[in-house]
Structure formats: C-alpha cells, structure tokens
C-alpha cells in the first residue's frame, strides 16, 4: 500500500500524483460538492463502490512501471527517530459544578434562537437557529433528567488545531508523566520534530493535544456540553472531515438522545448537551433499592455509596467519538476521539482500599478514587502525512484507510517511563481500519483484565493479545517488576496489513521485530523505560475472579435476528439526508443487502426482552468489527460452537470481530432507556460507505413498538420526518 522511500523518484512522483487525484475526490465529497452517485456518473467509481482501475487514481491501477500497482508515497518523517519523545498522559477534562453552565441545561433541547453565520451552507444573512443542536421536543428530551440531574458538568469544544497554551491536566505529577512540564505550551504536532499541524488539518477536543479523558463514577450523572467551534465554511477542512458532528459515548447505557445518533448532528456555533446518567444496567428492575453493596460507587471520603442496578453490569473503559453520518472515519481520524474512565465500588481506581468490594487493580492511592499513577490510557492510531507533514486522508479503495505512521496518544512511536511494579493500561484502537495484535518484545506474560471496557469474569494470561479491532478496548496489566532499572521493553504490533480488509497475517514476535514487514506499523510501537523502583510497595492485585457475567438463565429469549455484513449493498430509499449510497450493506433476517438509511428501522426489540442475534460476515476475506450501540452483549458461540469463544471474549462486549468468513451469536437484553440506536461496522470506512443500520427501542408506554420520527438537522433547526422504511419483521 505504501511505497518504500527508496523507490525511484519517478515512481514516487507517480504515486503522489495518484494520491493527489484521490484526495481531490475526498475533498469534493467532504465539502458536499459531489455525491457518490456523481462519481459513478463521472465514471470514477464502479457501482460496487471501488475506484476504477485507472492509473493516476486507483491504488490497484497498473502503473507505468509494469505490474506494480500505484501505491502511496511514504509520509515524510523529517529525520524524526522513533522512541525519541515521551508519551503524554491523556489530558483530564475539568469536572465542573453544573451551575457554571450558561445557559443552564434543560430536559428538552434549548431552542433559544441566535443569529446564524451566513458562511454556513444553506444560511442567508439574518436567519436564526437554535443554540442547541439536539432535536427539539419530548422525544429527544433527556430521559430521567429530573430523577437523575447532572452533578458534574464537562465543557468541551470541537475546534481546529492550536497550541494548548500550557493548559494540561495529566491527572498525575510529572514524575508519572515522563517528567513532562504540564505548564509548558504544547503545539499540535505528532512529534516535536514534525511540523505543527495547520488548523484545518486536525480537529480535536478543544483543538489541542494530548487527547482528552473524562473521569466519571456511577451514580454521578454527567452533563457533557459539547460546543461545535469548527469552521462554518465546510471548505475550510484541508480536504477531509465534515464540520457537523454527533458525539457518541461508545458503550454508554444512556437514552438515545445522548447516544450520538448518526442523524442527530449539530452545526458550528451550536452546542449539544449530552446527559450521561452513569447507571448500572437493569437499574429499573434489579437492586432497585440499592441495597447490594457490590453495586456501588466510590465517594470522596474513601467509602461507598450504593447505587441501583446489577453490579455484574459494571463498566470501566469507554471512549467517545464523532458519529456524523457518512463522515465518521474522517472526523475521528482528524481528532474527534477521547476516552472515559468510569469508576465503581469494584473498580474504584484506588489500589489500597480494602473494603471487600474493591478489586484493587493497579491505579494509585492518593485520591479516594480515579488515581492514574499506575492506570494509563493508551490510544493507538495510524496516521498519514502529505509531503508537508500535514495530516492527510486517503481513500485508496473502499476497503479501508491505513496510515503508515504509528501513533500512541497522538505521538509518533513515543517512550513511556515506568516503575518496577504493576501497571494497568487501557488500550483503545482508535484507527480507521487497522487491527492490532499486541505483545511485549520479550514475550513476557500480560494479564488481560477487561474487554471493551468490561472487567472479565476471570483474568486471562497471554503473551500475545488477540487481534484488536477498531474501537475495541483491551485493558491489560503488565508487571514491570521482572525488569531491572535502566532496561527497556517494547510494545510490539504483530498484525500486518496489506489493505484495509483485515490483517493479511499475524506475525511472530521475532518476525515483527525483524523489520522485514512491508507494513510500517508492524513492530515496536511504544517503548517502556524502566526508570526506578516504586517509592512504596505495590499493593495492587489481580484477583482470580473479577466480575462474573449477569445470570440470564431465567430470562426467556423473545426472538432471534440475523444480520449479515457484506458487499453489494443496494438502496431502496432516496431521502437526500438520511439515505446513503455505498458498496457496503447489511442484510437483516435474510432480506436484501441494504445500504444505510438512518430513516429506516431495521429492528425494534421489545422493551425488557432478551434476544439472540447472529452476526454473519458476508465473505470476501474481510473482517468487520461490528459495534452495537446501547446494550452490551455476550458472545454465545463463534462459528457455531461455544468452544470457539476464547477466554478473553467470555465477558460483556460491544464490538464483535466477525473474523473473515466468520459468524457469531450474541445475546442481549433491551431495557432501561428508549430511542433510536445503531449497529454498524467500526471499520469506519465501511460504516461511512453504508454498512450501518438503525434499530430502536421505544419506551412510550405503548403495548407495541412504535417507529420514531427521524430527525433532519439544519442550522435553522431540526425537523422530523416519518421513517422512510420499516423492514418487515423489524417490530
């Protein structure tokens, strides 16, 4: 996919020209100048959605150099060497009191009018629109807002790249952050030796790096006010990324109005109030009186406050990211990704509290909860640069996007200083299409404790983690006490890609370290430097039992559904906003393979029921990491057998790697909150090119499910239309 830097200048020039042509297509699409239907009419894309095999355009086109396909030129590195700069900790969002919010948050969307900027598409001078982009009215009101009012306010903006001005809270002292001076300004660079990113090329939370982290705990609802401070003119995007956004709290058990529905996007100049109540699933039916101490939240004095719900549903590691319909890949790649640690009585982030509930995982001891000294968030993502070192996005084929620059916490191959003791790492795959398979360079054992942010029933000892699909989170514990002070060990990626379909092969550690792989993101990606003994003894634990799964044995299965993810999708609707055309699709219950339309209801499980869903890969050698919003599931079988479910997938999950040609069955309960949710491939190039469906759970007191109206956002306000399609058998 990427050419080596030692190819001939002519060859590299040809590749650069081809990529330039492709990025023109991305640019035109991202700025709304053309649609995919236009590309087909222009003969640039086949009906299957692939770029036509023409030299100067497709990565698969024959070049002047014979059978070598036209690849992409390597990203310039400006003589930057790997492991030459520290990895920064995440930047912790300030937890504010709710009364700092002005205007105060409201249950229904705040429709106060403001003057619109005429640079917004479709806006003329003098027009007004609502200050909040959340759809208006009772259906999109915060559910249980009065019962669970926000106690913490977090204020964030989506903004263009800028210096952080020395405003950075790593949550730890500098000794635990590679001695980075958090008061010094950090420019938006992927390495100090690389160019500062232009404002149009990178759009992050607050426009700054390091990536951001929310600290939350059960029973403490959060109001996340997200301002859209992106340019009003969609052309100010460096050729990729869309300035409208919808923020998905990935794995959140919240009402749909807070889920970041793909069609509930908001515009520059607006904010959107997301109400994250942080409840244990089942809180309306299990442990309603909060008498079970295992279902609890850490308070500020070192004790526990009980919360209602099923403690077996406790969650720990989330992330949140953009979900803009058909532009998720570009926007997340551009920087709209952050993490969210949720603390509980079980997983309180204090390794010293011995109360019989706390699992005492590696974290720290200074604060009652949420200590980060030995609990480290890692965001893995591959990137690519243009010849000026600016972030760029390439579409290659519609199989996915791969970068050739490996970053951890948005820094090119950094190092991280550790003590001789146990650490917890919360690893997020925030790539567009790349899978990882991680190991330590010396093959030392790693303890996997959580999958998709949920502590496993039992920890699993591994020397090589399983492949980690896009959006999956693996929490692991590494014990550095086996190493001497002054030594180093590396995190190594073993999964080699040739394209965005899936890993082309998993290498051995020795092969990955050999430097022979053609994939520049294989091999060492993060260097651990063992710098000192811990100042106090390590009292953290990894117990043999973490969080057992909920008992579903007495809950009948209301029905089964089948979803097949594959190519050859067709579109049956033509709504210009909700309907999308692309090569990918989802086949529901044996029906047609359909392109995405967020106005189409494909499934509507009944409230308070349990279902079994089969997720099937349509073939072609692809892998699809399928994400189902809102409700977690448990994998019952892989390829027809429960025995094929590995120990690290025996807990609760929200992303399901189908594996090439594979299929799995999962079981889920549907409860607590209502509204419209999604299911899609988290290879976000697939998602954006129509591998997405809408499902919904309507809790309006009706004896049957009732399809909800579809929001149609504009700067002047959100209107609603009836669903344009309801699949037979959805209800």
């Amino acid at each position, binding site marked *: 996919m990427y050419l080596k830097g030692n190819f001939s200048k002519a060859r590299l020039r040809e590749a650069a020209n081809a990529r330039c042509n492709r990025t023109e297509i991305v640019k035109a699409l991202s700025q709304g100048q053309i649609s995919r239907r236009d590309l087909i009419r222009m003969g640039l894309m086949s009906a299957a959605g692939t770029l036509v095999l023409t030299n100067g355009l497709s990565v698969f086109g024959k070049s002047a150099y014979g059978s070598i396909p036209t690849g992409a030129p390597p990203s310039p590195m400006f003589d930057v060497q790997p492991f030459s700069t520290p990895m920064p900790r995440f930047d912790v969002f300030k937890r504010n009191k709710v009364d700092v919010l002005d205007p105060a948050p409201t249950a229904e969307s705040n429709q106060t009018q403001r003057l619109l900027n005429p640079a917004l598409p479709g806006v003329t001078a003098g027009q007004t629109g609502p200050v909040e982009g959340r759809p208006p009215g009772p259906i999109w009101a915060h559910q249980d807002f009065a019962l669970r009012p926000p106690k913490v306010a977090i204020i964030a903006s989506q903004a263009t790249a800028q210096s952080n001005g020395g405003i950075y809270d790593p949550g730890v002292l500098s000794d635990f952050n590679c001695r980075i001076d958090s008061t010094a300004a950090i420019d938006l660079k992927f390495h100090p030796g690389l160019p500062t990113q232009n404002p149009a090329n990178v759009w992050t939370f607050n426009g700054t790096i390091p990536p951001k982290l929310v600290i939350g705990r059960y029973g403490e609802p959060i109001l996340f006010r997200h301002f859209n401070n992106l340019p009003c003119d969609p052309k100010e995007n460096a050729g990729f990324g869309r300035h409208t956004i919808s923020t998905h709290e990935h794995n959140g058990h919240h009402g749909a109005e807070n889920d970041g529905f793909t069609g509930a996007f908001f515009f520059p100049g607006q904010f959107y109030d997301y109400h994250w109540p942080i409840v244990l699933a089942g809180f309306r039916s299990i442990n309603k009186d909060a008498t079970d101490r295992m279902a609890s939240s850490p308070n500020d004095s070192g004790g526990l406050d009980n919360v209602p719900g099923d403690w077996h549903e406790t969650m720990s590691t989330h992330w949140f990211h953009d979900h803009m319909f058909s532009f998720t890949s570009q926007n997340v790649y551009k920087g709209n990704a952050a993490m969210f640690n949720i603390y509980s009585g079980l997983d309180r982030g204090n390794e010293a509290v011995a109360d019989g509930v706390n699992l005492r995982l590696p974290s720290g001891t200074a604060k009652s909860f949420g200590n980060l000294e030995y609990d480290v968030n890692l965001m893995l993502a591959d990137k690519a640069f243009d010849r000026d070192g600016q972030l760029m996005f390439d579409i290659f084929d519609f199989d996915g996007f791969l970068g050739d620059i490996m970053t951890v916490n948005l820094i090119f191959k950094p190092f991280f200083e550790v003590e001789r003791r146990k650490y917890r790492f919360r690893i997020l795959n925030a790539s567009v299409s790349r899978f990882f398979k991680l190991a330590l360079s010396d093959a030392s054992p790693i303890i996997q404790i959580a999958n998709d942010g949920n502590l496993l029933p039992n920890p699993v000892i591994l020397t090589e983690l399983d*492949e980690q699909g896009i959006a999956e989170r693996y929490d692991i514990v590494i014990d550095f006490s086996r190493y001497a002070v002054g030594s180093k060990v590396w995190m190594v990626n073993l999964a080699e890609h040739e394209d965005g379909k899936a890993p082309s092969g998993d290498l051995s550690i020795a092969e990955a370290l050999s430097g022979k792989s053609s994939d520049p993101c294989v091999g060492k990606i993060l260097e651990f430097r063992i710098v000192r003994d811990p100042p106090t003894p390590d009292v953290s634990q990894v117990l043999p039992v973490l969080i057992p799964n909920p008992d579903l044995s007495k809950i009948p299965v209301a029905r089964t559904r089948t979803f097949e993810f594959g190519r050859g999708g067709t579109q049956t609707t033509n709504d210009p906003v909700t309907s999308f055309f692309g090569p990918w699709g989802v086949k529901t219950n044996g029906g047609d393979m359909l392109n995405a339309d967020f106005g189409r209801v494909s499934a509507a499980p009944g409230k308070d029921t349990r279902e079994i869903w089969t997720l099937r890969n349509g073939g072609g*050698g692809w892998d699809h990491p399928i994400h189902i919003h809102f409700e977690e599931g448990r994998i019952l079988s892989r390829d027809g057998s429960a025995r094929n479910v590995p120990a690290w997938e025996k807990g609760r999950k929200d992303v399901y790697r189908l594996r090439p040609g594979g299929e799995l069955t999962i079981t889920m309960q549907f409860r607590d909150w209502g509204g419209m949710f999604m299911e899609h491939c988290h290879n976000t190039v697939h998602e954006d090119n129509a591998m997405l469906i809408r499902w919904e759970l309507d809790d309006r007191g009706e004896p049957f499910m009732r399809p909800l109206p579809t929001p149609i956002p504009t700067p002047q306000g959100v209107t609603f239309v009836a669903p344009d399609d309801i699949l037979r058998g959805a209800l």
Partner: protein
Amino acid sequence: MDTTRRLVPAILLLSFTPALGALAPTTVSVPVAGTVFGLPESVFFSGTALITVRPAESDAPGAAPRMVVSIDLGDLTGKGLSTGNVYVTGGLISLTRRLVPGDVIQATVPFFVRGASPTARGRTAVASFSFDYDITTGALTSARAALAAPAPAPAN
C-alpha cells in the same frame, strides 16, 4: 525473560485426508509432548493441541484466501520435574494467516503453575507449527508441532 532455558523439541507429524468441498474448515488434534528446561524448574508437558483452520476466500482476483487459525492448548498440562507441580498453558492461540502450500507458525504461550495467582510470575514458551495445505480446498493435510525456547531478550 527472566530465565534461560533449554528445550527438548517435541515434534509430531500427522497426516490427514483433505476435507471435502472447497474451502472447508479442518479440525485436527495434534499430540504434543516435551520437556521445557529452565528455572525455577524444568517442566514436562503432554497433551494435545486442537487445531482448527478455516479458509476465508478473498473477493480480490488472484488474492490468496485468509486462513483463520485457532490452536487450543487448553488440554496441555505439564509436570514440574523438581516439585511435581502441575503446570498449564495459556489456552488459545488465534491468528490470521494467508493460505500457502506450507505455512510455519510461531507463537508464544505463557505457562504457569495451575491455580497460581494471576500475578504470579509466568514463563513463556514458543510453540511452532508447520502446516501443509491442499491449496485448492484450503484443507489442512499435515501438521507438525514443536516447542522451542523464546529468543533471547533484545538488548537495551
């Protein structure tokens, strides 16, 4: 790694009849036995590796199918030659490979005393597998398994 050890390779060669039908999955059991020498004690392992390979045909013209490989070592147990302790290995190896006539897979696996705390210091062995495939059906036609020592830790 914190130990140096010598391994006695245990090499098994089995032959199978190719599976019927194009690109059908194959499941075989390969007996594995051998002694892992090293500190704090040498360990004799025996048992079977349950190997499943499932070809996934590519829709790209001329591209070799991907092989979804699962190797279950959960049946493998070891006995400490000094203490008599029972050792177990980390259960499942899960890999993506390309279909080639002969594939050599090398994967590391942890092993540790049965019932030990998850944080007890585990050790690492390298499991090597040589697979021969029927290139037309993707069926596994023969398999060899061996244990080997991990490569020395890279220098700082």
